[in-house]
């Protein structure tokens, strides 16, 4: 193991989700980054997992609020206010 490679593949893998979600502390982030920089296999897995999240979010962002819903909600609120 090189001096920079302070996390093993398994340790990095266990932190991959939290790393993708920016839920690690600074020290952990540095260690994961160091490992990904020297381990092609883990870097490939990380790129894939991150892309899954981005792609799912991109699809979900295509769900548009129906134009009629905005009016419907505002009308319901106005009615509730005057009742």
């Amino acid at each position, binding site marked *: 193991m090189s001096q920079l490679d302070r996390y093993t593949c398994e340790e990095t893998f266990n932190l991959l989700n939290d790393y993708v979600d920016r839920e690690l502390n600074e020290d952990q982030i540095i260690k994961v980054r160091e490992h990904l920089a020297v381990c092609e296999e883990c870097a490939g897995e990380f790129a894939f997992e991150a892309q899954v*999240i981005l792609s*799912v*979010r991109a*699809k*979900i962002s295509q*769900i548009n609020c129906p134009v*009629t819903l905005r009016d419907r909600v505002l009308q*319901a*609120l106005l009615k509730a*206010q005057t009742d």
Partner: protein
Amino acid sequence: MAKSPEGSAQEFSALIDPLLTKSYALAYHLTSSREAAEDLVQEAALLAFRNFSSFQRGTNFKAWLFRILVNASHSQHRKNLREPKVTPLEDAEDLYLYNHSLEAGLDRGSSNPAELVLGSMDVEHIIQAIESLPDDYRLVCALYFLEETAYQEIADILEIPVGTVRSRLHRGRKLLQKSLWNIAVDNNIIAALKDESEAVK
């Protein structure tokens, strides 16, 4: 009904208006029906308006609204309406989509196989995949994929510990990958991508 004592309708409308699209998307995940999602958003908006006096100014309005929306979806009425369209998943191994994509030979060229597979799927497929998750995982994943949301905010919305969010999210994402792959296979998306891949070679 008495007017909201402290909050004006104008203030409430200004707060809820920019959140309607996300509220609708979340409601769609929870109900799996566009029509039921509209009903749920309206119901949640009215509930929130009627209880607006209990909202603490300066705190997270979105988290407050989403909590009301999630709770409203828990009503027995909606539980009866929701009929799972796919068989619930039992478990999935790590890197499910990654390993299956490589096994199928989809790691071609410079394209990330995840982008290739998910880019070929419809929004409805994604909704179907999230719907297939067990309830606890479905809720956490629906909130997580709606936008970049910190574990703590999801915990606040669902009123569960942040550690529970983390563990449900980790397992939920694995299950989701399995479901996405199965849906892609069932809809001949993988077969079509394999054919394209073969043609390139």
